[in-house]
């Protein structure tokens, strides 16, 4: 479905344009009909990877394919919905007009009922006639979610979808993801909140410092986490990390946290 093969992306920084790697030699397969969580600390390269998948950024080397098309080809996005991190819309336009505009760009016939349906699902139907510059951050996020699920796309890519949402919004958003999961949609979402991992994902990929350090199904990771925690409890260092461990509720979260921390230090 989505295939990343040896993808590297560097940016040139500073006056002399020194190369700085954001993603290094990343190979990843995102399976059809599954929810894949993409975890990593801030600055790990998650958003850069997602932007390469949706065609906003060109990889420096390697290839990104969606349904057999290169990610830069517009046909790769025929069945793709994308929710960016901190979405934004131009001033002076009503929510409903924005959704209508994006619905027209989909090469699909989308009727008024479908538009209302996505607005209701995203929980922004009540504010459809308000100008978007009057929206709160959470409302903008919901409108962007409505835009991303318009036309019932097969693949959904969410970049930090839960950031900017209040606890009720987070719960509602998770419910939407569960509904989409029931419909067997392919969902790829990034997050740095480990609590989202077990609840939502079938598979987890962990990126630290631009390198993929884990790409396993949730069952395999849980087993690893259990084994890791058993080793850790026998370890004398456990008291030093006690405070850190208490921040996380499940062995999987502790395992992922330690994995990121260890690789970040390295």
């Amino acid at each position, binding site marked *: 479905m989505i295939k990343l093969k040896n993808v590297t992306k560097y940016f040139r920084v500073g006056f002399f344009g020194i190369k700085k790697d954001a993603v290094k030699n990343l190979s990843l397969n995102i399976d059809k009909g599954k929810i894949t969580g993409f975890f990593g600390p801030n600055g790990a390269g998650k958003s*850069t990877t997602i932007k390469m998948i*949706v065609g*906003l950024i*060109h990889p420096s080397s390697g290839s990104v394919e969606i349904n057999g098309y290169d990610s830069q080809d517009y046909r790769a*996005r025929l069945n793709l919905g*994308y929710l960016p991190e*901190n979405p934004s819309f131009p001033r002076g*336009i009503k929510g409903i007009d924005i959704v209508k505009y994006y619905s*027209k760009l989909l090469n699909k016939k989308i009727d008024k009922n479908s538009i209302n349906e996505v607005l209701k699902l995203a929980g922004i139907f009540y504010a459809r006639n308000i100008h978007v510059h009057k929206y709160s951050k959470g409302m903008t996020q919901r409108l962007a979610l409505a835009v991303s699920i318009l036309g019932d796309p097969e693949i959904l890519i969410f970049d930090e979808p839960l950031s900017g949402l209040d606890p009720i919004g987070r719960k509602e958003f998770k419910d939407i993801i569960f509904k989409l999961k029931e419909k067997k949609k392919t969902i790829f979402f990034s997050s740095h909140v480990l609590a989202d991992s077990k609840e939502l994902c079938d598979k987890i990929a962990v990126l630290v410092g631009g390198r993929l350090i884990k790409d396993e199904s949730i069952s395999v990771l849980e087993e690893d986490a259990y084994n890791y925690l058993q080793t850790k409890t026998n370890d004398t260092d456990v008291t030093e990390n006690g405070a850190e461990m208490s921040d996380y509720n499940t062995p999987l979260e502790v395992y992922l946290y330690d994995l990121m921390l260890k690789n970040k230090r390295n």
Partner: protein
Amino acid sequence: MKNILYTAIYSFNEIKNSKIFYSFLVFALVLIFGSYFVSQTSFISQGRIMVDFSIFAITIFNIFIGIFIGSSIVYDDIEKKSIFLSITRPVKRTEYLIGRFMGLTAAIIFSTIIMMFIFYLVLLIMHKYVIPFPIRSVGRAPLHTKTFLTLYLLPQSLLIQALFIIIESVFIAVVALFFSLITSKALASIFTILVFFIGNVSSRMNTLVMPAKKIINGKEIIVHRANYVLTAAVHLIYSVLPNFSIFNISSEVSYKISISSEAILYGIIYGLSYTILLFVISSLLFARRDIS
């Protein structure tokens, strides 16, 4: 093609609702109305002063729209990240760029039409520069001919000036768009203003550095020649940068001189070819650009 049209309509609505567009439009309308009071300062040629002043107002505010909205129409989209949702749809980047630019072009045409209409009303009230065009019902004999409606038309040169203002503003907008893709919005605006300024004076500068000749005893003799480096630099600027002075026909408009079809065609082709060339370059830059 449909994507371009939808993006153009969306962009036009966005520009139409923007504060900057309204501000320029209101300022221009105030100046057009103000042209009446300015013309009262003269005992003679009041109409000419009014036309000069209003044409200046319409030109400068359309140029401002071209510069400031042209430099922000894609730049702001990238900065505010609203572009993320647009170009991740099944839309080619070129389609998106054409749509945005068409929306801006529509906004420029829209503002020019509004300004020209208000200007026409002012001229109509003042009864200056309008040409009466009686519409008669034709009977069998000349005695039966009766005027039942008189239309007041604008002179041809004034209409051509309006067309040239649109072409010039669209041209300036594509210059601003091009600069906004390679630099910041502020710098893009400054560079575009510089190009516009140089483009307006380059023709006169080029004439000034031409060798001064005199005919003595039937022979043409050069009596003064400017510095070679200066002459070469002015020639280069004149050849490379667009010449905006060809769109300025305000003197012809003031004296109601008709513009020849060759001059009209030249202006249109000159403006369009430069605009298309710069747009193609912008489009290539935009296609290669990382949007993050």
